[in-house]
């Protein structure tokens, strides 16, 4: 039997609110979520906004790109990089990983999936 987690889809913003190939920060109750529009690849990603390296609310302001076609984001503070798809730290040290969230687009609106 496959256990399905129950997702609540939360309306974050319009697609046009997020710059091409860039990110924004979304407020969800007391949480901060970084949302990325990887328009070059036609993909959307969401992760926690807090960088685990020095606990800074900064991931949404990071630069996105790829490393061997793995989508990633670089924290603006010390350029630690994290996979956008798995949240794993790619900088080869143990500063910790990012939590990731599913994203869906409907009618030019962006929804982020939150596990209940």
């Amino acid at each position, binding site marked *: 039997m496959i256990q399905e987690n129950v997702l609540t889809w939360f309306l974050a913003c319009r697609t046009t609110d997020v710059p091409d190939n860039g990110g924004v920060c979304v407020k969800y109750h007391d949480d*901060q979520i970084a949302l990325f529009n990887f328009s070059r*690849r036609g993909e959307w990603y969401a992760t926690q906004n807090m960088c685990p390296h020095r606990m800074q*609310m900064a991931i949404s302001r990071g630069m996105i*790109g790829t490393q061997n*076609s793995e989508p990633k984001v670089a924290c*603006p*503070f010390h*350029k630690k990089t994290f996979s956008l798809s798995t949240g794993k730290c790619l900088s080869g040290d143990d500063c910790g990983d990012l939590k990731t969230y599913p994203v869906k687009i409907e009618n030019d609106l962006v929804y982020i999936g939150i596990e209940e």
Partner: protein
Amino acid sequence: MKIVVIGNGMVGYKFCEKLTAKAQSGQFEIVVFGEEIRPAYDRVHLSEYFAGKTAEDLTMAGLDWYEEKNIKLYLGDPISYIDREQKTVRSHHGITESYDYLILATGSAAFVPPIPGVEKEGVFIYRTIEDLELMTAYAKKAKTGAVIGGGLLGLEAAKAMIDLGVTNTHVIEFAPRLMPRQIDEAGSNILKAKLESLGLSIHTSKNTSGILGDQFINGMQFSDDTKLDVDMLVISAGIKPRDELAKLAGLETGHRGGIVVNDKLATADQFIFAIGECALHGGMIYGLVAPGYEMAEVVAANLMGGDKSFTGFDMSTKLKLIGVDVASFGDPFVSHTEGRSIVLEDSMKGVYKRINISNDGKYLLGGILVGDADAYNMLLQTSKNKVVLPPNPEDVILGARGGSGGEGGAGITSLPDDALICSCESVSKGDICQAVCDGNETMDAVKKCTKAGTGCGGCVPMVKDLITHTLKSQGKYVRNVLCEHFNYSRQELYDLVKVHKLMTFDEVLNKLGTGDGCELCKPPVASILASLWNEMILAKGNDTAQDSNDRFLANIQKGGTYSVVPRIPGGEITPEKLIVIGEVARKYNLYTKITGGQRIDLFGAHVSDLPAIWSELIAAGFESGHAYGKALRTVKSCVGSTWCRFGLHDSVSFAIRIEERYRGLRAPHKLKSAVSGCIRECAEAQSKDFGIIATEKGWNLYVCGNGGSKPQHALLLATDLDSETCIKYIDRFLMFYIKTADPLTRTATWLNKMEGGIDYLKNVVINDSLGIAGQLEAEMQLLVDNYKCEWKEAVENPEIRKRFSHFVNAPEVKDPSITFEPMREQKKAKEWK
């Protein structure tokens, strides 16, 4: 078998390393006594202590290494007595240890000539980390310094003094030329001119007869009745082997010092060996590390039952000074009967090369290189391995002219596989190529696996060439490319973007790259676009390719707030504008600080407050200071002739003119400048990327200086310029830098890497040797004409303004995680974890 080693210096340590590497565990019991308080460190690179290396960085192996190898190490406890009958040694603290074999590796001490006054405070020697610590502390209050001794070590010490901030430093040499043991008169003259351009004053044929001052040195007296005022002095007049212990034990020593040893490095007592700088072999003291390592190898191998001999060693050297290349190899001064010399001298460029070849023209016997020693490793190998010279032997020194590295690559191939590339660690060409084939494809990897290049470091360029060459021969591609998305260097990309008239990051990536970009290629491409077209950096989809700081036109600070830095050209500001800054800071609760670049930074701004803050500043006549960009920062100025009684010209007006001309200019890295009104240099122009100092007749232009973590003095590019010519030269200089430098390379590093150095740069900028001066000026004019204040455009554009909010779905809410702590009536960012 029990082995006692006296001395834990470079050679004593290397002996332990070689012996433990060869021996089975338990075969030897090793005990080491060291007089210094720390385990052996890399004395060869001692001067790097001034460039920020710590004692720890210089350590050869930490205490845990000795423990792991089961070596008993006594530090800070010298041996004071050897009892050869009982075969024991006794230390200063009274520890007695017996030995089967005793190794003397006591090195040498600085030789201090008996000049009256040498005991005064402020007189130093240059041998240990403690010496350097003492010098560093004293140098803080010294302005003028001197070094006695113009040899290898003396020149290194003089450079160290300049690095310590004793900018007025003199070198006093007794002989008629510098480095008398390595180079000839003509070479010395070129070297002297070079060193003088670095700011050293050189005095040859000068004999110091006394050191003046009461408790502290304040001057030097010379035998020709002249005097020199100095605040500190380093004596580097040669070395004196530490043979006192051997003498006391009745072992034979040379009359000018040194423990006499045979080809097995054994003393008259068959159970006692001497290695390193304390050993006198064949009438020679070897004051270099490589022969010492070879001696350690011989003794270690023989204790294991081998049969090796030490039969002399090559004394070729290359000076490690920054800014001047000097090298000598083989026999630098061949006499007429033994061979003939070919000499190339170019006093304009400051280059002197001499090679000595055998009378039949077949073999290279030795030579001297000053000003350009790129060919050193190759020539050294050619002479050591008796490689037959080409029919026109002069090609080996002329060949490199105008050409690039190609020559070096071809040369390497002609070397036999057993050619010794790294003589410190005896690593051959074959060893290195094999290591590369085994997958060690970087310098660091090869260093780790073969140890090549870990000694004096002189072979590093050649090892790099070998790596490149081996990779190429395997069909692998090696180039200094940006990242996995672009197979081009920054300079290549700059030209291609220009030719194809590409305007956005995506256009560049589509046309010239692959994949989706990353944080390594986006900022340099964005910077190239800005340097080429100087359009609003947040336009046309280039915004997200900017470094985060550029994207928000502000520097991100601890805690996630931003700083606000309005431009204050030349550091001149009206009372009205000062009041506005104060009011804005109070209104938005910002921390204010006056910075080193003569302006006022406001810290702690929420991202959503930035547009409002800037609207108010712009309304009062301020514009962006570009503190967030790899761009021109400030042009610092002293008050100059308008107020200062020494001022020759109006340095403030010129600084404002310069700052307004180049404001907003994007470059591979940040750019700083300054203008001083006279040679007293209150604006510190010689520590800037380009600096200007007033002279009686005009302006002197200095370039490629640097503060920061690796300070470097700017070099004089041109003298006595009128204002227009000065600006013309700066245009050319800056544009040439922008077009050719690698990403994140400051002008100082760019120049250090440039083939031909400052002379080449002078030729390009002043003599237009590349024929591009007109083009450089036109390109700069285009950028100047296109300048707009980025913040003005941002606050006037509602689309861009909208991006300055923390939450996309709650623009009015500020980041609740931001907290401040109070400090001295202002605030600071909360400490991070």
